[in-house]
């Protein structure tokens, strides 16, 4: 399947990615040209630019072709994920504009864009080597971003932890990939898929690669980094890692399980199912005792990944569509939650759940936004999380995974308990400072308004989005 001739039209299939690079370079140039006092305009420039690229990516026709000798494929699944990454990036940029401790320089924004670029490649990769390059591009950018607040203690500490854990898992994955190369004699997905069968060595290789994916998704037992990193990272970056990075992990997981390891299907189905159960249960259980809201949301994100894994296990058109739909809902939901955290901790200077007492009196808008976000995470209608979970669960039951769905359902109830405890803080508990109004800065207001609207729209009118995703996924099969 090697095409030796290089055809310029192939560039058209990766035009969204090219635009991302152009934007990143433009941001760096713009940064140099901007005086120090006006650095905030770099952020606005990046956000607007990314929004344009996002809209372009949304409407650019999908060629559905492999490009660059089968390195990547521009198909519906890849495109859906790319839009999700860019959407997360755009919302996170808006949050970053209001994050006070952040030094507004071009590097931050450019690195964020490179991270999105890496994710876009991950989602489209059909070649083990490109997959690795994409993952490293994403990860290295993320290490930098997590440790970006050099003059505080927690942020660089979190960055180092993230780096050590990430580098380790990445090394393991790379070793697994080398085994795959040894077994299959190639690195293209199609080539590997034809050769790889459930031999012990192939299973070992699969497990090693799964370690790398699991790190991105934060699934048990590769989740240890996430609470510390979530807590220490600048809040907008926490949001970014919790949504975009996780979604990218799922993109490669979905593509690799179906495209790279179809020969190991008898091994990976029970394994992913078990991981799904453990991930959601552990995440929910450990979220209950948390006092710091970012740590709580970290464990909650682990649990959410567990739910998504139901769709991965179920697979097929219905399962994958459910996965992507849920991730879309999850992006706007988690970004909303972190947007509120961002504003509140900027204002009160702490991240303890107690600080959220009487939030609805201090800012009815923030109270409502936080409630909608938490209810969506919990899966209460009319929020999108309800429909999303229902799609995942029904995909699971449709494939006969009744035990898995029952466990998920029990987990939803556990989840509701700790989400409601925060709603209780915000609505019921009184506070001495309840007359002190918390102002909502403009950019966050836009981000929150958009996300909350999206949560409710996806929850009430799920059909257009679901149908679109379903047709995109159908092109892949």
């Amino acid at each position, binding site marked *: 399947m090697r095409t030796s001739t290089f055809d310029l039209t192939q560039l058209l299939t990766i035009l969204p990615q090219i635009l991302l690079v152009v934007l990143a370079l433009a941001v760096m140039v713009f940064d140099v040209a901007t005086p120090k006092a006006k650095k905030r305009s770099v952020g606005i420039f990046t956000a607007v630019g990314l929004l344009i690229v996002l809209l372009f990516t949304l409407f650019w026709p999908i060629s559905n072709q492999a490009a660059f000798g089968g390195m990547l494929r521009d198909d519906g699944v890849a495109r859906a994920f790319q839009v999700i990454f860019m959407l997360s990036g755009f919302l996170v940029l808006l949050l970053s504009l209001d994050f006070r401790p952040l030094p507004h320089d071009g590097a931050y924004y450019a690195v964020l864009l490179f991270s999105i670029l890496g994710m876009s490649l991950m989602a489209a990769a059909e070649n083990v080597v490109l997959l690795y390059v994409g993952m490293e591009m994403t990860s290295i950018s993320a290490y930098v971003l997590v440790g970006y607040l050099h003059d505080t203690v927690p942020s660089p500490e979190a960055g180092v932890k993230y780096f050590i854990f990430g580098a380790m898992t990445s090394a393991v994955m790379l070793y697994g990939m080398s085994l795959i190369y040894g077994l299959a004699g190639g690195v293209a997905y199609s080539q590997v898929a034809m050769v790889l069968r459930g031999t012990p060595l192939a299973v070992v290789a699969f497990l090693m690669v799964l370690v790398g994916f699991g790190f991105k998704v934060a699934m048990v037992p590769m989740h240890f980094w996430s609470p510390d990193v979530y807590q220490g990272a600048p809040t907008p970056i926490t949001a970014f890692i919790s949504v975009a990075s996780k979604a990218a992990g799922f993109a490669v997981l979905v593509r690799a399980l179906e495209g790279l390891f179809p020969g190991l299907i008898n091994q990976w189905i029970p394994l992913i199912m078990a991981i799904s159960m453990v991930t959601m249960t552990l995440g929910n259980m450990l979220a209950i005792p948390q006092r710091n809201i970012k740590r709580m949301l970290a464990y909650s994100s682990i649990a959410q990944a567990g739910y998504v894994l139901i769709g991965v296990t179920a697979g097929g058109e219905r399962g994958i569509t459910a996965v992507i739909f849920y991730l879309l809902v999850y992006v706007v939901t988690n970004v909303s939650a972190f947007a509120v955290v961002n504003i509140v901790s900027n204002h009160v200077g702490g991240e303890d759940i107690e600080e959220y007492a009487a939030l609805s009196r201090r800012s009815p808008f923030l109270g*409502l936004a936080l409630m909608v976000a938490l209810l969506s995470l919990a899966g209460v209608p009319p929020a999108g999380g309800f429909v999303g979970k229902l799609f995942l669960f029904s995909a699971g*039951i*449709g494939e006969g995974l009744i035990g898995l769905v029952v466990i998920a359902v029990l987990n939803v109830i556990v989840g509701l308990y700790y989400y409601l405890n925060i*709603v209780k803080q915000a609505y019921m508990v009184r506070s001495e400072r309840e007359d002190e109004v918390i102002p909502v800065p403009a950019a966050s207001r836009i981000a929150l308004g958009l996300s909350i609207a999206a949560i409710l729209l996806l929850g009430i009118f799920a059909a257009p989005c679901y149908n679109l995703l379903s047709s995109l996924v159908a092109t892949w099969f």
Partner: protein
Amino acid sequence: MDFPFLSVIAFTPAVAAILLLLLPKESKTEARVIAAASSFFALVLALWVYFTYDRSAAGFQFVEQVNWIPAIGSSYHVGVDGISLPLLLLNCVVAFTGVLISWGIDDRPNYFFAFLFLVVTGVNLVFVALDLFLLFFAYELAVFPMYLLISIWGWKQTRAYAAMKLTLYLLVGSIIALVGILALYFQAGLGTFDLLALREAGVSAAFQKTWFLPVFLGFGVLAGIWPFHSWSPDGHVAAPSAGSMVHAGVLMKVGAYSALRFGIELFPQGAQFWLPYIILLTLVNVVYGSMIAMVQDDFKYVIGFSSVSHMGLVSMGFATMSQAGMNGAALQMFSHGVMTALFFAVVGMVYDRAHTRHIPDLGGFVKIMPVAAVAFIIGGLVSMGMPGLSGFIAEVQIFLGLWQARMVAWWYPVVAALASLGIIFTAAYVLRVVQRVFFGELKAEFATLPDITVLDKVALGILCAILIIVGAFPTVITNVIQTGVAPIVTLLGGG
């Protein structure tokens, strides 16, 4: 395309809720007016639908159907039949009277009414839903805002505990039922969530026997079936008055209604197998609920446990699987809804003035609030099953149904005999409360308390009037209910 009555009724409170959430917190009067006007509007429409429903044609009427999520075979499909129609009306009545008696709420009334109306929207949708997906959406929507109502405006001492307990109980129940319904969806293999289609799906008897129990009991949690009732007295007591009215008055009917419509109707063979045993649980409800109510010292707990007891009669009526029993149960849902709303309204009025609900500390309240006392006594008579009031018509039919169904299992007559004990206990606790709270010596500290407001009197008047009208002219409602019950009885193979 006719005027979409049901959608307008269902979504009026939702639109009002959005308006209320957007109001600034200073505009308290505006909030109250919006709440009263919108709930009155919905009530008028519901009355219109109720009286124009074609009783001779029966079946589902005022049907609307729009595609919703075609990919999974779910549509926005609504309609009312003889069982859901009275409940829809009930909900609108309780919502309107609930707003009237909550006029005095001063802490963020716009939020209070908004959350109350979200519950009302959810309940409306449950009663009109003919699509299981829509039902679930609405069911969860109805349950959740209750958490906020209780935890923000509830009774300070127990609200955090009661709100969480209630929410988790109801969620566990509904989610168990959800798994059952998803199982049915895939088993039927029709790729649709439509109630009418699934009713015809003809899934195997073995499947029905396995899945009837989770679905019926899952919904039954909200109907307060023993031993899953313990959230209910706590929840009712901790809730603010209008919250208790909606909760005990309507929300518990959502549980009973869903158990009937989606448990019994979709799994008739499962129902035939299990209901003779479930009737024993409902017997415990009736007798145990009324016994516990008898020994409560807290006025509101008496009413809370009385709901457990009366809702037991509803489930018992269903479990007879006979025309009379089901008629009685459906009427009991309506009658109990109005009656218990009345009770909780009066309890709230007493508590708001006396700041205690401890029965031994109260007494002589007839001197301060004669109208409330009279209303409570009327409610009490309904509760006891006094002839000439709605409760009598309902309960007589339930017992009649039990005798009719005596061929189902040998213990049905025994159940009937024991359940009548519950009626005696009911008389005892009602009379005890009436005597201790409203009659007797009025304490000096209460002598200067003000009477209830005009709006309170209007609300109580509406509720009393309904109880009396249904008692005096039962056909107003029974001929509607009959049309709804008959097809279900046929489905269960009885007559």
